[in-house]
C-alpha cells in the first residue's frame, strides 16, 4: 500500500463529515426552532472538528507543507470522495433529519470498527468521534420517531424523505479500490460487512416511527468515485469562496 491509498481512504471518511457539516452549517439561523437550530449547528461543529483531525493527519502524511486548509478548500469537485447522501439539499426539516439519521446509523457502525484500526491515528480519531456520533444518532432517531409518529403531515413528509433518500443508502457499503487496499492491512474497514447491521438498525427505528421501509432495487452511486450530484458544485463554491477569491487568506 502506498501513502496515497491511505490518503484517499481518509478522504472517503473525512469528506462525508466535511460536506454534511457544511450542509448543516447552512441551517445556522434557519432552523425551525431555536433548539433544533442549535442542535443542527452543534452537530455541524462536531463533524467539522472531526474533519480537522482527519485533514491534519492527511497534511502530515502528504508532507510538502500542505495544511488542513489546503485539503479542505483547494481540491476540485472530483477529488472529494463523500457519498451522495450527505450532499443532498436542506429542503425541509423532515428531510434534513432523515438524511442525518440515514448517515448517523452508518457513521456509528463505521467508527465502532475504525476504533480497532491498525493505524493508530485513525483509531484515536474514531475513539473520540464515536462519543459525539452516539449523541447525533440518538438525536436523529428520536426525531424520526417524533415526526413519523406525529401529525399526518409530518408523517407524510418524513415518509417521502425516506422514499427519496433511500436510493443513496446502498453506496455507503461499496468498497473502493482504496478501501480494499487499506482493509488488507487491517487499517481500513470492510464496509460491505456493515450493511446487514445497518438496515436492521434503520428498519427498527422506521418501524417504531410507523414508517414504511421502501422496497427498492435500483440505487444511485458515484460520490465515492468523485462523481457527484448537481448539488456538489454549489456546496463547494460556497465552501471554497474565501480561499479562491483571496488565496492564502487567514483569519
Amino acid at each position, binding site marked *: 500500500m502506498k501513502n496515497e491509498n491511505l490518503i484517499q481512504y481518509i478522504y472517503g471518511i473525512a469528506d462525508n463529515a466535511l460536506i454534511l457539516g457544511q450542509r448543516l452549517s447552512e441551517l445556522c439561523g434557519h432552523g425551525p426552532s431555536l*433548539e433544533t437550530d442549535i442542535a443542527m449547528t452543534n452537530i455541524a*461543529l*462536531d463533524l467539522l*472538528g472531526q474533519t*480537522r483531525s482527519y485533514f491534519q493527519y492527511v497534511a502530515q502524511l502528504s508532507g510538502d507543507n500542505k495544511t488542513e486548509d489546503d485539503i479542505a478548500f483547494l481540491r476540485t469537485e472530483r477529488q472529494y470522495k463523500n457519498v451522495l447522501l450527505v450532499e443532498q439539499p436542506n429542503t425541509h426539516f423532515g428531510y434534513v433529519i432523515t438524511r442525518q439519521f440515514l448517515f448517523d446509523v452508518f457513521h456509528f457502525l463505521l467508527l465502532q470498527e475504525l476504533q480497532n484500526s491498525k493505524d493508530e491515528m485513525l483509531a*484515536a*480519531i474514531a475513539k*473520540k468521534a464515536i462519543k*459525539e456520533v452516539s449523541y447525533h444518532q440518538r438525536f436523529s432517531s428520536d426525531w424520526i420517531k417524533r415526526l413519523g409518529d406525529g401529525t399526518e403531515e409530518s408523517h407524510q413528509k418524513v415518509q417521502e424523505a425516506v422514499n427519496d433518500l433511500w436510493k443513496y443508502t446502498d453506496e455507503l457499503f461499496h468498497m473502493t479500490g482504496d478501501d480494499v487496499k487499506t482493509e488488507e492491512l487491517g487499517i481500513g474497514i470492510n464496509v460491505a460487512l456493515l450493511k446487514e447491521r445497518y438496515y436492521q438498525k434503520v428498519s427498527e427505528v422506521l418501524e417504531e416511527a410507523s414508517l414504511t421501509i421502501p422496497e427498492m432495487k435500483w440505487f444511485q452511486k458515484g460520490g465515492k468515485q468523485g462523481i457527484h450530484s448537481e448539488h456538489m458544485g454549489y456546496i463547494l463554491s460556497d465552501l471554497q469562496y474565501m480561499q479562491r477569491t483571496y488565496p492564502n487568506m487567514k483569519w
Partner: protein
Amino acid sequence: MTITLEQHIDPQLIPILEKVHDPEIPVLSIMDMGVVRSAKMLESIAQVKITPTYSGCPAMDVMGEDIIRAFKEANIKAEVSLVLTPAWTTDWITPRGRKALEEYGIAAPLEENADKEALLGNKKVVKCTNCGSHNTTLVSQFGSTACKALFQCEDCLEPFDYFKCLK
C-alpha cells in the same frame, strides 16, 4: 497532533495552569476540567499537552493561547500541543470542578445510564441548579455549547444547562 499519553503534570507548574480557565465556562480551570494531560519543563520551555473535550470545540484554540499567555506572565516560554487519546471523558472533571459548575448554574454530568434516561426524557433525574428540584424536563439534547444539553425546571421554571456525560 500526537496520539497516546499518560497523564503527567509537573507539580510546580500547577499553580500557573490553574490560572487558565475555560473561556466558555469561566468558573472552571483547565485543571478542574481535566484537559491537561501533560506539563513539564524541557530545556526551560514548558511543554503542555491538552486533549479536546469535543473534536470541534472552538474553546481549545483559545485555551492554548491562554496557556501560553499565563506562562509568559510567569516569564516562562510555553508550547502547547493537542493529544487525542485517551479521549477526554467527563469523569476527569474534578470534584471541585463539579461543585463550581453547579454553583455557576450548570448541572454536573450524571453517570452514563442516568444520563441516557435523562436525555431520552424517560426519567427526571437532573437536579435544577436554581431550586434543587428533580422535577425537570429536557428542552433540547444540544445546548449553548457542544458539551451541554438544555433543561427546564417545572417547579421554579428556570431554564438551565446540563453538562452531558461523555464516556
